[in-house]
């Protein structure tokens, strides 16, 4: 073989090598990443993304620091953020972050947070800007993409789902509105690559603009009429947003905004906090207008007349069984956060509710002191006192029949349903016998549920709440945190609240007319106490206001409503600056319990000192975190911070 032959072969071979080069060798497919076109290719595919938007609904049940703990209704152990907030410790620096016990944030840093499937952890917040705007962006993305790929969807589906996303967005904004006042309103997913970085900084809308945005969004949803009023209880869609949810939210936000804290020349948060005129506009309307009450009354009336009268929504008769899995999504429930045992479980049965300790019998029949949950709901004597007597009268009213040494005799039936008190019989579905719970300072048999004013997890007040506790859930003694069997939903809105909203707004707008009496009476009758007429006859507007406020406090107790009430009524500065009280029960012969058990209302204590509370006017609203301000120079801070 000579050189020429070699060259010939070489050239032919190289030609073969170099030919047929088509695909890019470095092109690999990522199967983990689904692109827009696939994600929004059909109704079912797009539903997957909206499901994640629903996942963004607040998981109040999974927080140990329920918003009720921020009020005069409850006292909890010292280490929760609420205890920090109640001492006036709220600043732009501590509002965000894990270590500093920021108010309305209970957040355990977890690697999975943000991806949506971390509900077994205790990650939840009520007012976190980062989480709220992530949820808003998700809804914005959904609306934008569905419109972009409109041809891929059925019209019916599209109308309904866009309204659902709009509702979820308005719902998120409503929490921001209640905690911050006016906030930046963003209705499109922002993009760094499309706009200049300065355009990403959106200033706060005023209180009124934010209010108008939320209510007009909800209004358009109701008018659009794409969603059902309420799903059938057996529907596979039960749990989705409905017209009922949209209208109830609208009625509530209108009531909230019409209230004295905001419907005023000087909004509550601006009183004595050196607010600028700009801040006034961000934190309230800056004037008083009685028509705001009328508007709220009208919306709630609309609900009662169009949804209530048609029996789509009505009060659920068996109040004692309201918070059970059998009665989820009952006729009274307007909107609730879904939970399901073992896959999307609730932690509430270990955080909240009933007694901390039950002395249980073990297999050998011995009594053992079993810790069943952390008992974070310690109702104050102030709340307990607002539970009227069975005869409908308040304990301080003449003829109530209240005996301070028999304080738990003859009370409003709701007291026995929802409160665990000294001597209360206690039996959950799984318990084999009915236990009796004591909150006594017992020197003879210490350790068994005695009220000790100590710093541990036992009740600090002599009471616990049992509302919303799932009676089916059996916790393992001690290891309560790992329980995953609680599937009870968290109710955001129920029809009773709409009735209370209406009564309050109507009383303020026009005074106590018959419809006001009727709304309150529906609740009293269902609770099993006499009507207002039977108890009091006629009432003045002011008397009616007191009764509505009290009725609201009791009916909606332990449902995380009180915090927004004491804020909008502008009474937080009163009730949270007063000494709170507990029930102390001692035996007159402590060494052998041979005497009588003496009931005494005493100052709430912590570490043997009076439990210190303070409420400053700035606390009517939260501060924007320093980080939020640093990252958006257009944000104006709330007054006083």
């Amino acid at each position, binding site marked *: *073989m000579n*050189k020429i032959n*070699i060259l010939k*072969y*070489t050239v032919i*071979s*190289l030609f*073969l*090598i*170099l030919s047929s*080069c088509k*695909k*890019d*060798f*470095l*092109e*690999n*497919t*990522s*199967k*983990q*990443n*689904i*692109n827009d076109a696939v*994600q929004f290719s059909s109704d079912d595919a797009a539903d*997957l993304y909206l*499901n*994640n938007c*629903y*996942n963004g609904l607040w998981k109040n049940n999974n927080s140990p620091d329920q918003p009720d703990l921020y009020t005069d209704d409850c006292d909890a152990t010292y280490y929760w953020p609420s205890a920090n907030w109640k001492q006036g410790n709220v600043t732009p620096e501590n509002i965000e972050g*894990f*270590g500093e016990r920021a108010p309305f944030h209970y957040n355990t840093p977890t690697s999975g947070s943000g*991806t949506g*499937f971390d509900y077994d952890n205790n990650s939840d917040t009520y007012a976190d*800007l980062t989480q709220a*705007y992530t*949820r*808003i*962006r*998700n809804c*914005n993305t959904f609306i934008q993409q569905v419109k972009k790929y409109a041809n891929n969807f059925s019209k019916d589906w599209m109308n309904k789902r866009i309204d659902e996303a709009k509702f979820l967005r308005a719902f998120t904004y409503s929490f921001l509105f209640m905690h911050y006042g006016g906030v930046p309103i963003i209705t499109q*997913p*922002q993009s*760094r690559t499309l706009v200049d*970085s300065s355009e*990403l900084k959106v200033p706060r809308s005023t209180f009124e603009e934010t209010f108008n945005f939320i209510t007009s969004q909800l209004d358009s949803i109701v008018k659009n009429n794409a969603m059902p009023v309420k*799903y059938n209880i057996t529907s596979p*869609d*039960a*749990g989705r947003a409905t017209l009922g949810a949209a209208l109830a939210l609208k009625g509530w936000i209108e009531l909230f905004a019409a209230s004295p804290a905001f419907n005023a020349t000087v909004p509550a948060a601006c009183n004595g906090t050196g607010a600028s005129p700009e801040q006034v506009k961000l934190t309230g309307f800056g004037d008083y207008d009685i028509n705001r009450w009328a508007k709220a009354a009208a919306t709630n009336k609309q609900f009662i007349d169009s949804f209530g009268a048609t029996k789509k929504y009505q009060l659920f008769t068996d109040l004692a069984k309201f918070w059970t899995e059998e009665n*989820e999504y009952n006729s009274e429930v307007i909107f609730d956060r*879904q939970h*399901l045992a073992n*896959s*999307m479980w609730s932690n509430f049965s270990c955080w909240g509710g009933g007694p901390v300790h039950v002395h249980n019998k073990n297999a050998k029949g011995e009594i053992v002191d079993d810790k069943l949950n952390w008992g974070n709901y310690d109702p104050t004597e102030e709340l307990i006192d607002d539970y009227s007597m069975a005869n409908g009268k308040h304990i301080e009213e003449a003829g109530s029949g209240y005996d301070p040494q028999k304080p738990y005799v003859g009370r409003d039936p709701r007291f026995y349903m929802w409160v665990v008190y000294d001597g209360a019989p206690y039996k959950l579905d799984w318990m084999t016998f009915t236990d009796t719970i004591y909150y006594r300072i017992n020197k003879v048999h210490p350790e068994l549920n005695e009220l000790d004013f100590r710093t541990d997890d036992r009740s600090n007040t002599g009471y616990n709440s049992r509302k919303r506790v799932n009676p089916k859930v059996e916790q393992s003694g001690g290891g309560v945190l790992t329980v995953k069997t609680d*599937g009870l939903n968290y109710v955001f809105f129920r029809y009773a609240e709409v009735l209370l909203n209406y009564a309050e707004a109507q009383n303020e707008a026009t005074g106590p007319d018959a419809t006001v009496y009727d709304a309150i009476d529906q609740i009293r009758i269902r609770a099993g106490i006499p009507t207002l007429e039977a108890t009091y006859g006629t009432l003045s507007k002011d008397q009616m206001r007191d009764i509505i406020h009290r009725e609201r406090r009791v009916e909606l107790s332990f449902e995380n409503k009180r915090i927004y009430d004491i804020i909008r009524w502008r009474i937080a500065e009163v009730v949270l600056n007063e000494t709170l009280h507990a029930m102390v029960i001692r035996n007159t012969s402590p060494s052998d319990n041979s005497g009588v058990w003496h009931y005494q209302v005493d100052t709430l204590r912590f570490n043997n000192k009076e439990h210190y509370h303070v409420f400053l006017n700035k606390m009517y609203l939260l501060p924007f*975190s320093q980080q*939020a301000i640093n*990252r958006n120079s257009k*944000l104006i801070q709330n007054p006083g911070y």
Partner: protein
Amino acid sequence: MKHVKFYDLVLNFCRSNPYLFIKRFFLFIIFLAVFLLPQEIYGQEKTYTIDLQNVKIKDVFKVIEGQSAYRFFYNTELNEINKVITISVKDASIEDVLNKLFSSTDLSFTVLKSNNQIVIAPKGTTGKQHTVKGSVSDNVTSEPLIGVNVVVEGTAKGTNTDINGEFTLEVPGDNTNLNISYVGYISEMISVGTQTSVVIKLNPEVKKLDEVVVVGYGTQKKTSITGSFATVKGSQVSESPVANISNSIAGRVSGISMRPKGGQPGQDNPDIHIRGIATTGNNAPLIVVDGIIRNNINQIDPSTIESVTVLKDAAAVAPYGMGGANGVILITTKSGKSGETTLNFSYYFGIQTPTVYPKMLNAKDYMTLSDSAANSNSNQYLIANYDRLHAQDPDKYPNSNFYNDVSNLSVPIQNYNMQLIGGNEKIKYFAGLGYFQQDGMFENLGYTHYNFNLKLETQATTTTKVYASVLGSIEKIKSTSDDALWILWNSVKFIPTDPMVYSNGLWGASQGFSPEGSIKAGYNNCRANTLMSSISIEQQLPFIKGLSIRGTFSYDPTDSTTKNWSIPTTYYQFDTSLAPANRVFSKNTGSTATTLTETLKQSANYTYQAYLNYANTFGKHEITVLGVAEARQSTVSSFFASNEFPIIRVDELSLGGSNTAKFGVGGGSSTGSQVGYVYRVGYNYSNKYFIEAAGRYDGHYTFAPGKRYGYFPSYSAAWRVSEESFLKDRFAWLYNLKIRASWGKSGNLPYINGQLAEFQYLNGYTLYPNRGKTFPAYVFGNTPVSGSYIPQESNPGITWETSTKTNVGFDLGLWKGLVNFEVDYFHEDRNNMLIPPSTTVPIEYGITLALDNSGVMTNNGVEVSLNSSYKFQNGIEVGLAANYSYAKNKVIKSTYDPTGQSTPPELLAGKPFGTQFGYHSLGYFSPAEDIAEIDPKNRKHKISVPDDMIDTCDGYYVKQFGILRPGYIKYADLNHDNKIGVEDFTVIGNPTYPSTTYGFTPSIGWKGFDLSLFFQGAAGASISIANFQSQPFSNNKSNTGYEYYNNYWRRDRQNATYPRLDAPLSSNNTQVSDFWLRNSDYLRLKNLIFGYRVPAKILKYIGVKALRAYFSGQNLLTFSKVKFIDPEEASLPVFQGKYYYPLQKVYTFGVDVTF
């Protein structure tokens, strides 16, 4: 961007599919090998056509050399070759050509076809075949040398010396040369002539300068190297009884440091770093096995390693492009050798025992400490009588200790190895079999490793070489179903007054945890099969002298099966009120279900390489050129299935329960690809001045289209000063002095949390795992539904880290290489590290921003190594190898929170990565500081009575953590805000990784005895000593160590090591602070070997060529200020539900036999 254009031109043809190009190139090589010069194989002799007039004979040689693979060998002093002749032949055989050529001369020739040599000698000197007898001995000691290879030059004919160092050999003629070679000696070539008896004295090898070193994509002569390399022999790294060399390489050569991850069998792979850490991203070096990028350092049996080369500077790593910035470890496995076949068998057996293990309190001391904490005397009676009670009823009054009761502190380790090495000029082979087995500290732990290797090298034609290699590994890692480190964590804190193991052998529990129960609660066994196979063909291209091409294809499949069998933990209880005789032990079974999960992972890597090599010498000019095109592809797939076993508990998936809700299944797959074009061009003049350019144009699928290719060039130069005549002639002691310098760029792929950050450029939705079954997105109508989410904003601009490295150094050899130094200084700038974005968007933006390439770091250091050995006249041989490496990095720009505690990332700027931050402690509060007590009735009025509390009444206004008492730690309030918080964080210690690593190995040998000591040390790291041993009752009444018990603060012992005792432990005293940090500097005798080589005189009676027996000890001695924990290991976290598995001290005995 000129270079990109250049490459565009070159690659224009096929850049769209270089993979196909390289694959076809491989086929092309095969094609060439078959077609080119196959004459010898098929008997078709090559023919020559030469027509030359008036030329010198030696010029004709060149012409023939140009047309063939033949090389002429002759004595240049032969005048006859300069004779001018005329020659004309057509299609003649080589013999015909030569006959004609020498017809008019007194020269004769011999054609050695096997190795393409033509030997020219004066006529008549070829002589007759005759027998030569000879003896070989050591030139220094005159000891006869046994087993020396004596080979007739140019043939495979040869023999070995016998036990007297003597040989007898038939030589073909008087013109014969003998090649004498022996391991450890400089080879000699002698001319036999007519002699019938020769005496040969071999000189011990000192340090060969013409050594060949494995470098990236090839080999290079050590003299011509311009970059920074370190080489360690396989025999050295396999001295330690470890499963993989990761554990034994640090300290052996300069530039490598490591941090162990504990001693758990099969899971003891440490983090290795080359030249320290230069990035906040992935800092692992690239591993290359036999020329293929393979991350298989753990699968290679140390005893099959021929050599390990560590590539350190830019000149060395640039050929690895985006993979090279963290340094490269090249592992070369053993190959066959021509010569006599040897069969080697080696075996060792060892006993492992922890270097240090926690000494926890016994029951009495635990109660004593507990009483002191509670300030009561509740256990006085018990304590006084505990020994008696324990002796009477050990089950009711236990004295539990995990290390005494459950774990086994002396467990075996063993290794068998067989190697067959042999070959001739045509074919060389290596075959190896290995078995390694190691037990763990407790049941259900262990590691077994089988290795099988086969390597073949064939001279297929005179110009074609074929290499084939299969490296196989089967690993079995046995582990407990629960994490073994979690079991250790619980076992160390086990309360000693609770029963661990009863006298009847059943086991108990403390606080619901049972060590024995957990160990027996199933298993987690992994079996991994790895195959590294490759075939490679090298073809000389005779039409250009010195040019060869080579194609390599490698296929590395791996599969692993993990079986996790998790059964409920059981333990036993009894009614303590009953007398021992009446006791019934009741079983307590955990509430969890029995589950079996089987996971199968499969992956395959394909590598295609096309090489072009050129090397030639033109007088004093030498040129080498290397070009490689490389394509790599990977596929990964995994699959798992699980079920619960409510009834029949047999660990087979198909026997599980039928509840479909308990079924689990999942899986996934992915592919990856990379393509690179490597070049290296070297030039040297007169072996004195060297310059080299090397680099890689590299593309990787991780990045967005259009952003996938990067160029990584390097330039280097060296000057062998010692070759300059003005030095060489004047200073005889100066054997070698070479000055080196290099500069270049290399890359590092971006990683996030240990995962390659692939496809970050895509904006995408991720599905909730398991289609909503385990992780539903939401629930509608009480039915879980699945969902999808966008995890983060995409990063279309993601790119690789770039590293710019500069290196200067020199090699110095003195007294004929008796002492050799190598010194290097390096500086590295690392850019484009993936860090949390510093560009901020408003919180309202609503989506997590992707990390971006904006981190900057620098890294500096010095490396020194020294080698020396000397053999005295009396036969005593001493040696010393020592090395020292120092690397210190500095973070210039990073947005990482260095502590994970919301510490401002700016703190890290200008400091080494991994610098530890925390509070600065000012020692203890003293009782003298406790002055006053507050009057509870009138808060303003003070009473000057100490109240055992340090607070504002005592004039201490700083808010620390909870109530403060004398004997508690006082922290510095650095920002003077009267509050200790993250704002007071300051530097409290160095990183947990050492900045300095050094090693030295003195050795001595005499008359068959050898002793070598390998010391290794590290410095510059800080470790936390806070753990169960040093903090009392730190986790729910946990047991405490004697370390604390003997050294805690009391009013009568105020200068104690540890703070005051309290229970529960005050959070004030467990804060991250310099109080708990210690310098972890250590020096450790990593390995001691004492061996004896049985004299050949004895061996000849048992038919064995060589036999050596040895004792070795690992981690025998440690010098460190920290005594109660292993200073190498203590940087691991112990308060996160894991406790470190002790590093092991190993005593081994072994034998090596060669047949």
